[in-house]
């Protein structure tokens, strides 16, 4: 059984713990073992932390990476923000010896441990596609409804694509393929691939601007007649879920599921394992 150091981050364990329980259950049924990273912190969140101090951003991220290094396991995350912070930091430290020296001095003084560049950072969508495979996912599907899904990739799963090298950033397919393997239909919609609006600290600083971007996406998804929005990032998830309540003018609301919850539904997990009761937009699927 493949083992991974499971990086929790913040929004998933503290606001949508149903994403955590779904991920744990779904991965177990696919033969992927997740091991907790004792004492990990916020990735830290790129929007504010990187904007304030890139050195601090990388130093905290590097501390998280050293926990996985000690465990001898690659890191697995289900969040685009955590993926970006951890992946970009590992990439920068692996390619810039001077920078690594500087960050390692801070780490040594604070923790007694250094970053060695021995683990990879994996995003669960990419792991499902490349390692687990579509056939294994298909084999776990227990029937259920064929929902029309608006797949939202978010920004930091695939981009910057020159270092992430997962899929074509303009016309990706890996996430859609997984949703289809789960027995759903991934529906095309206008400007699919646009940012949800929340990132870069915009949601915290100018929530009205963030919501304008969210609304544009929602209107486009509605026009395509979808039953559900599927995301692969708890922050996009929060923006769509809470955003639809804040956008009072929207007549119709679309339930929002993280891919782990959608797979949970498709695999026939007990509904009370999915933690859907905290979703602001009611999920009756």
């Amino acid at each position, binding site marked *: 059984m493949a083992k991974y150091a499971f990086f*929790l981050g913040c929004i998933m364990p503290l606001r949508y713990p149903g994403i955590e329980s779904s991920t744990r259950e779904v991965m177990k049924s696919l033969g992927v073992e997740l091991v*907790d990273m004792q*004492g990990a912190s916020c990735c830290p*969140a790129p929007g504010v932390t990187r904007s304030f101090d890139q050195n*601090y951003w990388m130093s905290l991220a590097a501390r998280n990476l050293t926990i996985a290094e000690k465990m001898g396991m690659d890191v697995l995350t289900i969040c685009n923000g955590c993926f970006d912070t951890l992946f970009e930091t590992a990439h920068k430290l692996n390619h810039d010896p001077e920078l690594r020296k500087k960050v390692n001095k801070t780490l040594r003084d604070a923790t007694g441990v250094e970053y060695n560049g021995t683990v990879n950072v994996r995003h669960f969508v990419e792991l499902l596609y490349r390692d687990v495979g579509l056939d294994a996912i298909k084999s776990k599907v227990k029937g259920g409804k064929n929902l029309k899904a608006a797949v939202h990739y978010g920004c930091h799963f695939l981009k*910057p694509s020159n270092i992430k090298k997962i899929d074509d950033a303009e016309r990706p397919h890996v996430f859609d393929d997984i949703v289809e393997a789960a027995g759903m239909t991934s529906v095309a919609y206008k400007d699919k691939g646009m940012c949800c609006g929340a990132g870069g600290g*915009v949601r915290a600083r100018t929530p009205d601007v963030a919501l304008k971007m969210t609304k544009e996406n929602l209107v486009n998804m509605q026009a395509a007649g979808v039953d559900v929005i599927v995301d692969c990032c708890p922050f996009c998830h929060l923006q769509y879920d809470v955003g639809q309540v804040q956008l009072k003018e929207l007549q119709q609301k679309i339930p929002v599921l993280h891919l782990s919850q959608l797979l949970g539904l498709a695999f026939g997990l007990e509904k009370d394992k999915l933690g859907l009761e905290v979703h602001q937009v009611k999920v009756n699927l």
Partner: protein
Amino acid sequence: MAEAKVPNPEFTRKVIEQGGKTVNLCFQCGTCTGSCPSGRQTAFRVRKVVRRAQLGFEEDVLPSEDLWLCTTCFTCYERCPRGVEIVDIIMALRNMAVRKGYMAEPHRKVAELISKTGHMVSLRDEDKALRKKLGLQETPPTVLSDPKMLEQVKKITELCGFDKLVASGGK
């Protein structure tokens, strides 16, 4: 007649040093602005931010609200025909702006929470209750349940001077 502004290569050099090494490759085509989801909703024009960084117009760019309307979606970065690492330029500029005191209170609060608790949101009783109901460890196995590991985070905060930056609001 308005006076022409004089470029300030010293400021441009700082942008380059802090990660904006591709700033001088920009030839102002505007592909970035045309791709920007935030610019569709606001008057933010990312091409102008890059131009100001290139010319070293510090007083125009650092106090500007525009700098904070970027969601870091990387669409412009992907499409720029000159390979300008636009998000890295924006990050370099933001790092400088907060040190001039241009730090919004909601951002300062998030930064403070991360540096003090190791997480960007808090653990409330209702979160604990739901976690328990879902069969998860009530307090996540992160710094929240490990005070010694939280001390490491605080030490890094101190060593990087992040506690002082956040407490002073950059002023």
